[in-house]
């Protein structure tokens, strides 16, 4: 490899026409996308707020909850609330930021395989959801140790099934955010739609009787509730699957198609 020496010096040839430039691997792109989640002021603040808020929920529980409820699983459930609300926003910004900040120009110039870039963003979203679960687990563990010291219940019991369900829940909402971002390509619109649409849909479902059988399958707010209770039934998984297809899969697929086709200017 030769270096471009622009300052006066020996005349070294630029570039290397014979150089092989294989495509950029998914792992490398994922690493870049993970870094992009945290290297802006907005991204870093979101992650810090999630961490502080998770610790805050533990502190509030320690202060006000009855001793019997001071258990690892309840610290974990409450601790995950900030992440489940704010991580999807990080996902939205990961997609929309490319357009609103116009970084798509650089991103897709360096990595023309746009589908691979989107895949990297989705994987980065899943990884950050899992990482937040792990971090919240550590906070919950620390809170539980304090609870034991205070004479709280301090139980460590947490079924493997519940861990899995919690993981699935966190991942679903981050992917939903990524899907909304990819599809709508505009930060404020995507954030408002992400929070308002499912709520409006839930309210409609509650108000209009005729919609009830439909919302039982298509309201992610309802179908995701069993995730927080151990022992989900097959029927509950089925309903969750259908609503995930509508609220996560459809936006991700349509958003990917839109991103592949959109002209970058």
């Amino acid at each position, binding site marked *: *490899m*030769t*270096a*471009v020496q*622009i*300052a006066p010096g020996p*005349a*070294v*040839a*630029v*570039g*290397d*026409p014979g*150089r092989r*430039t*294989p*495509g*950029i691997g998914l792992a*490398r*792109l994922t*690493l*870049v996308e993970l*870094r*992009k989640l945290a*290297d*802006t*002021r*907005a*991204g870093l603040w979101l992650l810090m707020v999630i961490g502080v808020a998770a610790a805050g929920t533990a502190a509030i529980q320690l202060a006000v909850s009855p001793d019997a409820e001071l258990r690892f699983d309840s610290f974990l459930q409450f601790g995950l609330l900030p992440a489940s609300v704010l991580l999807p926003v990080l996902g939205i910004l990961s997609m929309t*930021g490319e357009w609103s*900040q*116009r*970084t*798509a*120009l*650089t991103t*897709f*110039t*360096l*990595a*023309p*395989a746009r589908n691979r870039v989107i895949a990297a963003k989705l994987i980065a979203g899943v990884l950050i959801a899992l990482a937040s679960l792990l971090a919240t687990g550590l906070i919950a563990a620390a809170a539980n140790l304090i609870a034991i010291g205070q004479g709280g219940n301090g139980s460590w019991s947490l079924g493997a099934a519940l861990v899995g369900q919690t993981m699935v829940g966190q991942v679903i909402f981050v992917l939903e955010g990524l899907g909304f971002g990819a599809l709508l390509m505009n930060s404020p619109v995507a954030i408002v739609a992400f929070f308002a649409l499912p709520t409006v849909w839930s309210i409609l479902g509650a108000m209009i009787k005729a919609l009830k059988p439909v919302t039982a399958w298509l309201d992610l707010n309802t179908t995701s509730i069993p995730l927080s209770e151990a022992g989900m039934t097959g029927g509950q998984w089925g309903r969750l699957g259908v609503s995930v297809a509508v609220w996560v899969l459809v936006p991700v697929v349509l958003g990917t198609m839109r991103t592949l086709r959109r*002209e*970058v*200017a």
Partner: protein
Amino acid sequence: MITVEHLSKRYGAHPAVDDVSFTCAPGTVTGFLGPNGAGKSTTMRMICGLTPPTSGSATVDGVPYRRLGNPGRRIGVLLDASAQHSGRTGREVLTLAALTMGVERRRVSESLERVGLNATAAKRRVKAYSLGMRQRLGLACALLGDPGVLILDEPANGLDPEGIFWMRGLLRDFADRGGTVLLSSHLLREVEAVADQLVVIGGGRVVAQGAKDELLAASGVVVKALDPGALAMVLARIGLTGTTTTDGGVAVQSNAETIGRAAADAGLVLLELRPAGSGGLEQMFLTLTAGDSVKEAVR
């Protein structure tokens, strides 16, 4: 090596780029000239696979851009220096590019130094950058992968005179070492000093292209006579029309001998008879692309 063949782009009924073809050879700087809205940026975006062409094709080193795999290692691109996340630092922008391209991280510092962004500037967020600093950052990004080809859209925008001079040197040097450079501008004067080849585009079509020296030679002569009225009559007699230049001369699409003979035959006293050079090229540029800027302004 950049090859553009019959590239066209239509937006509805509006042809933004219409059958544009040209080649940029290694070792040369090609100036891509045209008024605002002439189709320069659209053409460059099509070369870089960012805008799908309606018809035609473009290749870099014989390969369509999107099939280059890791294009940053072959071609450095700066299409819009302002298109950076305002919340990232200059160093972070380059670090992300280095990670994507798989380039060693130490090259980030080298690149920053090469374009004249010091450690303090590198630590600041792009939001605080002037347009000139963004151009330097964009250029650092384009050079990061040690490419053999550069595509730069109006890179001199926002640079001060010293910065423009510096960039000219950088691009000239890049080409002298076997690199290929395509750079666009709406100012002839800006690229004239560094370009070997010129491609002039107006209303989406190539209106002139070739070696700069040839285009300069083909731009006619400037003639000044003691009696301007008599000169106009002489020119009319041999079937030529001239355009009055700002300094009182007349630019004519002809050669010195033809004009000189016609003047001698008519007993006309000439005060000046010289190649029009860049003045003529500018005149040609304005004539060829006349009306486009006006359309752009009212669109």
